[in-house]
């Protein structure tokens, strides 16, 4: 779909180069216009008016033929086409101007203040303007420009909009509030958006949608309750509803234009070069006009997209119905097959064990909901651009490709390799030495005492231990630098964690002398299980201690080695606890690991698709390690 549109767009651009060949221009420029500040489409769609930063107000026919133009003395802030063909223009030159369909000026009203915008209902009965730094919405008589009444909102107004049927007037103020009024200007509701509102739209039913500077589009119902909210790629400069409020067009500052339905689902988007400043949908959502930051107006026929979206809903219903029919048929067939083969007894068995299933139900409900579902969700979403609140779009392997270009990940893999190598050394050698030492102690009480002493560090919560170590490295108050000074090596004192060269090694050194409790206990238990006779007979043959360790202990501890190595590998690949607490990945990227980048992608950048992809990659690595190990062990047993 998108491709056809791109082709269509390209075609129109080519045609645009040959003006004489183009019957209906789908893109046209207004010289010296600059930002398109406002677009207004006539109710029948035959004409549109465009106001621009370059003080111009122009009226075109729907196929892009200019009808007339008008130059104001300052920025044109708003244009509004009326049902009878009149055009009202508001401008920073403090005047309101009105023209008839042929471009003859009807009236010109000095409002004494810069007029910042205008909006009117289709019939023109409710026409509202607001002025610079004013808290009031001013309702005017479209026939004369005379103010009729004013409505106070209590805060400086940023933008206003009147619904097509004139029943609702929505004003957004600079304190991020939306004031929803009736046609008399009584404020009915007041509710807040999540950021500075740049543009507002209101439907015939009083639903509002706002685009904010904080790159969000939010939908509110009649009562001001937030319904949905999505992120745009840049500040949402303009939003425009269809009259029924079912579809919303949005422009953002980076030049993206979106078409969304009222559930926040994106139906279509396009990107132009330059800024997207303005966007307007005609009342039934068939044509979308997009205004840029450099005086261009583009016309997109989105009717096909809208009707496709409507159809899609029905198609989906049909698919569901068909799928459930197929499932029912399959079950029925399966049952018949079983009946033929006389295997229906299994159901009797199932029925008999109903209490067993009931007993397992809580376990499996938890298992499926809170473990299997997220696991599959992670696998699935690694192929998507996934930012909750926005539409999830399929991007194939882009997330994975991105990893190889992400300097934090690339550097992180290097760090991870260092951590794995040192981690394996740490996990095997010190505990093994300590286990051997304890094993060779003669007194049982001593053995027990030392074993307990080594496990004593378990009573400190892991995080507290990390924080203490972080303190030990403190440049001024840390134990290390003070100790170095004490023994006369003060010149070696160093900001261990603050220097990119030493930070990773400081992290690795944490936990010195690395006597892991689990590892120690596993090795110790392994040594105890070695038959005494084996050692005795070796001694009789004249073997010394080193020989006994090398030829009896180490081979018989192979199982323990394998187990501890795989546990260490799995643990190191996943672990970022210590790094997150002690260095946070810094200084610069010197202590990043992929798992930390995953955490940051999810928490800092809200980029959950990318985070999932990183998680999946680590999962695959761990899976490979496990499989290799399983294979290894099987051959060992054969």
């Amino acid at each position, binding site marked *: 779909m998108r491709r056809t549109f791109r082709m269509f767009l390209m075609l129109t651009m080519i045609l645009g180069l040959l003006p004489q060949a183009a019957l209906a221009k789908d893109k046209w420029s207004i010289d010296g216009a600059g930002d398109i500040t406002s677009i207004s489409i006539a109710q029948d769609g035959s004409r549109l008016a465009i106001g621009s930063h370059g003080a111009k107000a122009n009226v075109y026919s729907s196929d892009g033929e200019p009808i007339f133009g008008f130059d104001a003395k300052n920025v044109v802030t708003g244009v509004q086409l009326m049902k009878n063909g009149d055009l009202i223009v508001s401008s920073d030159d403090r005047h309101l101007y009105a023209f008839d369909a042929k471009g003859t000026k009807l009236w010109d009203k000095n409002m004494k203040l810069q007029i910042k915008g205008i909006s009117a209902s289709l019939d023109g009965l409710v026409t509202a303007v607001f002025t610079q730094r004013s808290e009031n919405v001013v309702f005017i008589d479209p026939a004369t420009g005379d103010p009729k009444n004013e409505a106070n909102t209590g805060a400086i107004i940023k933008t206003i909009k009147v619904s097509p049927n004139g029943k609702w007037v929505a004003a957004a103020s600079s304190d991020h509030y939306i004031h929803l009024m009736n046609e008399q200007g009584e404020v009915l509701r007041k509710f807040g958006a999540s950021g500075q509102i740049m543009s507002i739209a209101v439907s015939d039913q009083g639903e509002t949608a706002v685009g904010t500077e904080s790159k969000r589009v939010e939908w509110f119902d009649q009562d001001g309750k937030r319904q949905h909210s999505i992120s745009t790629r840049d500040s949402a400069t303009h939003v425009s509803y269809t009259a029924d409020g079912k579809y919303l067009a949005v422009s953002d500052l980076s030049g993206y234009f979106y078409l969304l339905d009222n559930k926040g689902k994106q139906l279509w988007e396009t990107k132009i070069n330059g800024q997207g400043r303005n966007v307007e949908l005609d009342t039934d959502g068939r044509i979308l006009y997009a205004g840029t930051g450099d005086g261009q107006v583009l016309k997109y026929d989105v009717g096909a997209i809208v009707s496709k979206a409507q159809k899609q809903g029905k198609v989906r219903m049909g698919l569901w119905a068909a799928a459930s029919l197929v499932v029912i048929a399959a079950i029925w067939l399966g049952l018949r097959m079983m009946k033929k083969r006389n295997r229906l007894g299994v159901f009797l068995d199932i029925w008999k064990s109903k209490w067993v299933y009931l007993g397992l139900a809580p*376990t499996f409900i938890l298992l499926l*909901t*809170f473990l299997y579902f997220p696991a599959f969700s992670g696998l699935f979403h690694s192929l998507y651009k996934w930012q909750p609140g926005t539409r999830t779009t399929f991007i194939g392997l882009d997330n994975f490709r991105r990893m190889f270009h992400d300097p934090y990940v690339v550097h992180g893999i290097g760090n991870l390799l260092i951590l794995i190598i040192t981690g394996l050394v740490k996990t095997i050698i010190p505990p093994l030495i300590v286990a051997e030492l304890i094993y060779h102690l003669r007194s049982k009480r001593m053995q027990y005492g*030392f074993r307990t002493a080594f496990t*004593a560090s*378990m009573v400190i919560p892991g995080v507290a231990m990390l*924080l*203490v170590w972080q303190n030990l490295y403190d440049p001024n108050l840390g134990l290390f630098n003070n100790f170095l000074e004490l023994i006369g090596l003060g010149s070696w004192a160093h900001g261990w964690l603050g220097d990119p060269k030493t930070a990773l090694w400081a992290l690795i050194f944490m936990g010195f002398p690395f006597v892991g409790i689990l590892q120690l*206990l596993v090795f110790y238990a392994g040594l105890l299980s070695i038959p005494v006779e084996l050692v005795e007979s070796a001694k009789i043959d004249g073997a010394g201690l080193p020989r006994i360790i090398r030829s009896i202990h180490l081979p018989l501890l192979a199982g323990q080695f394998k187990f501890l190595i795989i546990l260490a590998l799995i643990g190191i690949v996943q672990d970022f606890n210590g790094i997150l607490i002690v260095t946070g990945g810094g200084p610069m990227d010197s202590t990043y690991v992929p798992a930390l980048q995953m955490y940051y992608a999810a928490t800092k950048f809200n980029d959950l698709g990318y985070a999932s992809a990183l998680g999946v990659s680590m999962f695959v690595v761990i899976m490979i390690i496990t499989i290799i190990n*399983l294979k290894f062990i099987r051959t060992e047993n054969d």
Partner: protein
Amino acid sequence: MYSSPATDTLDARSEPKQGNKWGLKATISQIIIIVLLGLLVFLTLVPILFMLFSSLKSNSQIMGNFWGMPAPIKWSNYSEAFLTVWRFMLNSVGYAVAASILVMMLSAISGYIFAKKTFPGKELLFLLMLGMMMVPGVLTLIPSYVLYDSMGLTNTPWVIIIAGAAGGQIFGTFLCRSYMAGLPSELFEAARMDGSTEVGVFFKIVIPLSLPILATLFIMQSVGVYNDYIWPLLTIQDRDLQVIAVGLTSLTKQFGVVDMGMQFSAYAISSVPLLLIFSFGMKYYIQGMTQGALKM
């Protein structure tokens, strides 16, 4: 999955193998071993000793006289630290106990069923559990967060308790299954003959006989929840609901001037629940740790 030559318990120590030479050489080597081990224990415990030592000093004592004894001893560090972290500790202990009880209940039931019952689909269901053990936490971390968030559970105690229970019950079921498989089935049969219901058998025979393994589970699970850091950091924002692990890292950020003595006291205080549980159940914990390791 793992075949290992190790036997089950650590204390089942057979005869010392050293033999008959009680000479001077053997004594010297014993002394060397003791000195080496003593040194290693000391090095292992340096951070803890340093923590206790510094927790009694004021900032100026730490800065001015780093190696000096705490004089005067600043006990107020502890009272001040307690007032800051008691809430976090209480939360953590509460979550840990709740999650561990849930894990015990779920694991006992499903462990018993998998150990002693036959029913259609048993292998499939057991494989389903086994499969989850292969899935590392990194894969599920972020999607889990999104799931709990969409269920409105983030920033409530449930996010910790349910996650603890859901994750812990798998290991628990394995542990209970292998333990309960060793219980004599004749015992259950006899009870059934005497007219006991299935539920009665479970509560009157299975549970009392399985208390050691349930204690192991409880201790391992509660230590796990108490030490957990990333998950609560991700899911809990409300300071009143926060756990101790995250609370400890926020001490530095709370006050402009870092009161180091107070921080160290807070670390020491946060160890008290673990100290209590280990002094009662170290044996069970070590059993669980090595058994889990060897039965995997």
